[in-house]
């Protein structure tokens, strides 16, 4: 009960700080904290498999990739002097339209959730989400999407290498 609110609070606060930070390195590290809190929520939801891959793949692999690129580009701050002076969340101009859209989204989501119908039911007692059940479903019912995933990863890997490579012809 209290654990839910602790994890939820940590997730929301760190996510807010992610988009309020000037320095992308802090944003990435705060997002890792947010993912840790979400992982705790997955444990509360009786989903230890998702909690584990959340930590290993998201916080471990993807965020390290982000951190690596932030440090490789070595551009921690926004580039113009105007950007240096104003806080990213407190800028006029195009930001206003974006804030309006964001507020509209929040209003819509709250409206949808309050109109969601019958009273919320507590979760059923016995969760059946054992890792064995996930593995069985993954390799029988979802075998085809699983194999397609491997092709997706291969394509992404080749694409990333091609995109990030220096163009040799342009340098000659």
């Amino acid at each position: 009960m209290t654990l839910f609110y602790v994890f939820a609070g940590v997730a929301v606060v760190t996510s807010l700080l992610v988009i309020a930070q000037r320095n992308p390195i802090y944003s990435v590290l705060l997002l890792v904290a947010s993912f840790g809190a979400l992982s705790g929520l997955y444990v509360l939801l009786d989903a230890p498999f998702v909690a584990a891959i959340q930590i290993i793949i998201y916080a471990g692999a993807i965020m390290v990739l982000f951190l690596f690129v932030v440090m490789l580009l070595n551009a921690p701050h926004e580039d113009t002097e105007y950007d240096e002076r104003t806080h990213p969340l407190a800028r006029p101009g195009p930001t206003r339209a974006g804030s309006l859209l964001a507020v509209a989204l929040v209003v819509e989501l709250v409206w949808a959730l309050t109109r969601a119908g019958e009273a919320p039911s507590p979760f059923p007692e016995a969760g059946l989400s054992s890792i064995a059940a996930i593995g069985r479903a993954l390799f029988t019912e979802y075998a085809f999407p699983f194999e397609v995933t491997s092709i997706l990863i291969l394509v992404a890997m080749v694409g990333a290498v091609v995109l990030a490579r220096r163009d040799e012809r342009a340098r000659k």
Partner: protein
Amino acid sequence: MPTLTDYLVLSALLFSIGATGVFVRRNLITILLSIEIMLNAVNLTFVAFGRALGEVDGQIIVFFVITVAAAEAAVGLAIVIALFRHRESLNPDSFTMLKW
């Protein structure tokens, strides 16, 4: 005991925070991070509904979402590196060549 609605409200909050980041921030890396926040909000919804329905399908979809997110991060960051080489900037407003 937190109910399904609590998880959905939390997920909606996180999704809105991520969307706000995409709309408001002018830094390519932060925008990609905001997209990750939104993907995680959706994952939370999937797991919560899977728990409420007593099925594992929600967790399997989360597995696929995380895989796609990894591919997206790899390709997206490669594009960011290529763009930074051209313009020495991470501000999306400086990439307007395709704008008419």
